[in-house]
């Protein structure tokens, strides 16, 4: 089956880790992930400036490694990201700020990408809350 996975919570919310473990299990089970979509506070998972305490799980790093290892399509909603200060170098240049999301593997794009992923997946699973 093809899964679209959306995450609405920041890395310090348990649902970020839950979404990642779920995504890993999707691939391990022989399924496919057609897109990861980060919306609302979920955009912070792509923020490169987060420094996790050494004895805690570093979710932004784990997400990045997971996305890179499996060459996944990882889209961060640009409108949600701008107002939360998560910018890639292009947006940072446009607004005269510093970039806190690296371009690869993350991509800033619009909500249309969420709909497109949901349309072409067999299942859409959204993680949020606590």
């Amino acid at each position, binding site marked *: 089956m093809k899964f679209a996975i959306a995450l609405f919570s920041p890395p310090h919310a348990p649902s970020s880790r839950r979404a990642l473990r*779920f995504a890993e299990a999707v691939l391990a089970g022989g399924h496919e992930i057609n897109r990861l979509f980060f919306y609302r506070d979920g955009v912070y998972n792509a923020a490169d400036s987060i420094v996790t305490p050494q004895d805690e799980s570093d979710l932004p790093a784990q997400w990045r490694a997971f996305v890179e290892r499996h060459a996944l399509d990882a889209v961060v909603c640009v409108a949600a990201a701008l107002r939360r200060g998560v910018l890639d170098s292009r947006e940072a240049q446009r607004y005269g700020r510093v970039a806190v999301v690296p371009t690869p593997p993350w991509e800033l794009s619009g909500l249309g990408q969420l709909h497109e992923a949901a349309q072409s997946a067999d299942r859409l699973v959204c993680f949020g809350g606590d």
Partner: protein
Amino acid sequence: MTTLHLLSRSPFGTPLDSTLRLLGVRDGLLLCGDACHALQPGSAPLQLLEHLPDSVALHALAEDLEARNLMAPERVRVVDYPGFVELCTRYDKVNGWL
């Protein structure tokens, strides 16, 4: 079309009944995170869950039960992440109550 409903918030902080009212008779419920506290014996949320029709399947994520030292009642099936994925394939759609 059946729906698997994901609950992750504490049932004491946010009212559970408004969500349970929306379940279809063939829907499933998966408790994760603080929503697992709904399984606390002797609590009002557990009573609400027990009053769901038998056709509604109840599940809970194993790791969240273990973290909270909670036991699942007989009616609740405990799943790990592969089981969670499998549940998503079995229901027609998945709805996360944030």
